[in-house]
């Protein structure tokens, strides 16, 4: 019951500040990249197998708080007939040597999920 309408002032970012910041950010990125490239080190061994349990449905996986969208309120429910704006993904993380998956919502228009969508589309066409 505490709806409050504050007249937003338009935030003007100082272009000089923006340019300075951008330069510093790019420098930091470049420096990070260079430092890795220069590290004389064997190519890493790959340890990227997707664990089997990920393929077996998701009932028992760790659920982070907020999966039901306490912040991802944009997700429309399927029964509602609306197009879902978000898709659910499993994020694979390592805790020490153990693998864990956590569920998250990613906006449908994120490039990351393009391949999944293409796949779905392909399946539909079949």
């Amino acid at each position, binding site marked *: 019951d505490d709806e409050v309408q504050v007249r937003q002032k338009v935030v003007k*970012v100082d272009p000089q500040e923006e340019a300075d910041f951008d330069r510093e950010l790019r420098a930091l990125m470049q420096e990070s990249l260079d430092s890795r490239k220069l590290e004389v080190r064997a190519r890493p061994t790959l340890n990227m197998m997707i664990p089997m349990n990920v393929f077996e449905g998701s009932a028992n996986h760790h659920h982070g*708080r907020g999966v039901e969208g306490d912040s991802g309120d944009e997700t429309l429910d399927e029964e509602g007939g609306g197009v879902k704006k978000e898709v659910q993904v499993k*994020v*694979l993380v390592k805790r020490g040597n153990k693998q864990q998956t956590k569920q998250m919502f990613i906006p449908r228009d994120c490039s990351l999920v393009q391949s999944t969508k293409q796949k779905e589309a392909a399946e539909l066409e079949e």
Partner: protein
Amino acid sequence: EETGEDENFEYGKGDFTEHACRYCGVQNPACVVRCNVPSCRKWFCNSRGNTSGSHIVNHLVRAKHKEVCLHKDSPLGETILECYNCGCRNVFLLGFISAKTESVVVLLCREPCLSVNALKDMNWDLSQWCPLIDDRCFLQWLVKIPSEQEQLRARQISAQQINKVEELWKTNPDASFEDLEKPGVDDEPQPVALKYEDAYQYQNVFAPLVKLEADYDKMMKESQSKDNVTIRWDIGLNKKRIAYFVFPKEDNELRLVPGDELRLRYSGDAAHPAWQSVGHVIKLTAQEEVALELRASQGVPVDVNHGFSVDFVWKSTSFDRMQGAMKTFAVDETSVSGYIYHHLLGHEVEVQVVRNTLPRRFGAPGLPELNASQVFAVKSVLQKPISLIQGPPGTGKTVTSAAIVYHMAKQGQGQVLVCAPSNVAVDQLAEKISATGLKVVRLCAKSREAVSSPVEHLTLHYQVRHLDTSEKSELHKLQQLKDEQGELSSSDEKKYKALKRATEREISQSADVICCTCVGAGDPRLANFRFRQVLIDESTQATEPECLIPLVLGVKQVVLVGDHCQLGPVIMCKKAARAGLAQSLFERLVLLGVKPFRLQVQYRMHPSLSEFPSNSFYEGTLQNGVTINERQSSGIDFPWPVPNRPMFFYVQMGQEEISASGTSYLNRTEAANVEKIVTTFLRSGVVPSQIGVITPYEGQRAYIVNYMARNGALRQQLYKEIEVASVDSFQGREKDFIILSCVRSNEHQGIGFLNDPRRLNVALTRARYGIVVLGNPKVLSKQPLWNSLLTHYKEHECLVEGPLNNLKQSMVQFQKPKKIYN
């Protein structure tokens, strides 16, 4: 020993979360990440605020830190972001990839893992590597952007401030924004503003001013030690030792008030060891004596009367509570409603109407009928989240306030909190509100529990002592034991305290209305209470931080009552006053365009007395609710120059002098004439309690008191009963007859205290039946407002000179007023 009421209570600490963004204060766990550099570990949010990059990205870039950790309550839980394959934690290298066929994603570093060809052969799609930091912001689906509301309520920080604070963190990792704003020793503090970006900026401006005032207050009070004090001993009804003594004061120095703490010391002699004890002032007698109730009852050298020393015991409580309230205002989103938050900071907010069913009649039981402007004020206030009521002298502020509180309490939104800066005003309100039949609890500071009050039966401590139920008999038994023995065994003391606290809570919770001073609203006994509706009377006499204390307990609807044409808050530190600490919240809201509802009918002054104040201070809007006949002092034979106009300006040409102390002024001829006027009143049948003598100078006040006692033509006792005091101490009160002695009379220096129009307004509006002003027109006429007052008196043939029994029109010439006042 129970030293303070606030042991183990940290103000404004309660709601501070460590994971709040160190730039802006946003604390939503889904929106913040922690910098994972061991020496840093600060939290930042993912909002851009007023900068091109988000706060966390800003920090990482400025500090050259590269690792972060998510919050435990975020969707992924407490997770250090790192490459799934190699464990690299540099966020500037990380990005997500997804599996080709499944909805599975992992974080992978750009170099080297992303460029390993072998991955392509596995199930991963490398073509869509999605960097963690995109457009100078963390991926929004991983670290949420705070909502617009959250951002509006946060500290509005600029890129320059970010650079400054990052610079400061390099040498002092715990530095805060307050440190950034700290003025140097000799700097003038940052002045108050009309609008503030956010509550942090507000705090940055006010906190140093409150600190300045606190330091000054401490220095002043601690330097007030007096030696060679003579004591008269007594025992109170509660069997405690009471010391009576005279504690002289000067202009601008502290006025002792009941509840103040003093330390009494005796350095010892052949027959007595050195001794000292702290006590509370419980009253100030008309004979200028202080009554101090001592905490210790053992070992008091009661057979000694001379050679004591008295020190002031300074307490920081009220200042701590102001600082605490400002902090709560900034960090606790629930402290005040969003609407009030933005309104107080001067942001442009769409008008909001409080939807409450309005009562059919706006008066309240037990109160006098309301007049039209009072009804209008009550009705309007009930429908607005923030409102101001301006109550010129005698217009029924208290009755109107009580009626508002009555209707608020009947709306069923929980308990109503009613405050005022002074105890006197709180007592008056509590009494009126209680008359409507509401259940009122008057919460007093612990140090004032021994101070007598006209509403004692409403006070919490009284109600605790007199609550009559069988469960309370245990408490009563312990209380009795404590009273008799002075102390309890430690287990009994524990039990006593717990029982007392529970009883206090129970009584407070069952009240409709809690009344306390503004500072009292920060009492730990109210720490867990929430008040959606708050009314503050005399709010124009409170500083902003003081006013904030009752507001940050969850307010959604606030009514500020006061009169910005009368005296404002007293600020002792000139630096703080210059910076604007003396401006009340009420005044700032008026400057922001909030139009106060003005009560327009005055019931105090004879219509002749209200004419000048109405025209000079209230644009002529003050109407008279009393007639000339109702203010006719029948049977009183007093030489008013114009019958039916009980007022005159008595021309005085006597010289002003510096008082004996060297810090104040007095004027002997004026004092002598005050005595003659007082005597004439008394002779004509006026009783002492009807008369008030107002003078702005302590030197003159003391001189008049002395002079009347020694030279008064009538019984000494009569003069002793007459109140002689400063303008300030008459604010909020009235007398039938007022005698105003202006004192200053020199051609070259200013007229000091009398220069403030608000002080003149207060001085002129205390009298109900008649007023006599004594002063030098030649000097006073230089000031434009005094010039118009003198002209007013002259035009009405009330500017007179000569002996009291033969007053004649004065032909004294006025000087041209200096053009601009201020």
